[in-house]
């Protein structure tokens, strides 16, 4: 049985990243868009940890960066959700297509 190597992790990371981009482009719900952004963060985390494990096995740089990123993404999600709540108070909905007072 072939073992799971760096390339498998990187392929997974690329797939997750693409799903994130796809979701971000197609989702109409603000929460859905934010979830897609979280997917993109997690794709980067998978790549970081995989590189950390395979490229620099004696160091933990990749893992440390990933740990920091998780914290940053959590903080970002907090701020984003607060703003989505604000949008809901104004628009009674969070459909990103309808939030378009400003154009061009």
């Amino acid at each position: 049985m072939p073992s799971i190597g760096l390339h498998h992790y990187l392929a997974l990371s690329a797939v997750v990243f693409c799903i994130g981009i796809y979701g971000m482009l197609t989702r109409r719900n603000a929460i859905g868009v934010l979830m897609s952004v979280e997917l993109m963060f997690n794709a980067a985390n998978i790549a970081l940890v995989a590189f950390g494990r395979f490229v620099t096995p004696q160091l933990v740089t990749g893992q440390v960066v990933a740990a920091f990123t998780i914290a940053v993404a959590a903080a970002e999600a907090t701020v984003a959700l607060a703003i989505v709540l604000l949008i809901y108070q104004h628009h009674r909905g969070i459909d990103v297509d309808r939030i378009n007072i400003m154009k061009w």
Partner: protein
Amino acid sequence: MSAFDLTKFYADWQIILPECFLFVWALFVLTLATLGKKDEPGRSGTFALWTILGALITAVWVGVTADGAAFGGTFVFDRLAVVFKEVVLGGVILTAISSIGTVGRLEVHRGEYYGLILLSAVGMLLMVSATELLTLYIAIELSTMGLYVLAAYHKGSRRSAEAGLKYVILGGISSAILLYGVAWLYGLTGTTNLAAIKDAVMNIYMSTGGFPPAMTLALIFVLAGFGFKLALAPFHMWAPDVYEGAPTPITAFLSVASKAAALAAFLRVFFVGLESAAMAWTQMIAALAALGMIVGNVTAIVQTNIKRMLAYSSVAQIGYILVGAVARDTWGATAISFYTMAYLFANMGAFICVIAFSERTGSDEIADYNGLAARSPVLAAFFALFLLSLTGIPPTAGFLAKYYVFLAAVNAGYLWLVIVGLLTSVIALYYYATVIRKMYFPSGETASTITVSKSLTLALVISTIGVLFFGVFPGPFVGWIQNAAQMLLAGK
């Protein structure tokens, strides 16, 4: 495990002192804001101003007394850091002064406004000094996190909320893209330290005689991440909406301080870390710079809202700044730094004029600037001066800035880019001059006179001094930043 070295410990913390100072006082301002039942309009603003002045003095002092890297080479306080820290703090000071009126009209959360500005400024200062990708990434996040909230600060305004949402979503996407690029860069080089990345990239090039596709991909991702941050075309789509919807002092803050910090980080990442990959990114930067100048200037013509027009004009300005980046030498770095300085005063000044105008009239429409020269001769004169500096007319700093940038590009053999720059400057002159013509040669009747508040006058005078001083006596300053650029490129 080495023994604890007290001298080293002190040296490290001395280098990061300006950030610590600003951070502690930011927390103090935030705490004060939550404790006070009813915040008097001026109190937190006064605190914030003294804090920033303190940080400015500390930064100068650290710049004079300490030098070099700290925390295992993740953080550096070199000449370039001094230059950009002063620019960022200058932007923060002008923002704080020009916010006084805006904050006074807020009903709640007055203190938090300044607290967030200060926290964001801490992030920007860290960004200027970061020489390691994780430190840089955290600094970028710290600076934008506060800005997301500040963009949506007018809770009652739909536009402000919309600006906040657009900024937080696109900011999040850009930060994820940047992080993905960072991950690949780390995977290819095995390190996150910029100096080590430089050597590793050189090794990759030497051993394979080129770059693997993954390297190009990583470069594109990192460049896209920076592009969002700098509102560089084609990653500028968030800028006009956020600039229009956000409270105007925050717009000014976004367009000046945040961009100055990002430019310093750009210089460190691209001129030092990815220097050996220059042949892979120079063409990309040249294309993006040309696109920025064209898209920004052409779209600015049709705008009817002054904040949107300035947003597109700043997209173009970033294009001009990056013209200096194709040179990749001392002159390029010097031109970029000088342009940032000139841009700080001119753009900040222009936004302060917009604040002064909308404070009295409640309007941001260009049509309402009709006959401003009769309503307030002083304000019209200031505004005209800043617009001329943005265009690049002598004797303003904007002229010299453009001259240096174009000179650097010509020396690097990018004549076509300079021609694009000159042609788009003519377009820029057209829409800036349209505003000036409206102010001085009104059609129809003009309304009552406009008075400018004392704090805004002070901010305007500071900006004017900056625009004229660096336009007329650039010599000593240019020598100083040239020195900084040399040290940056020499890796010292």
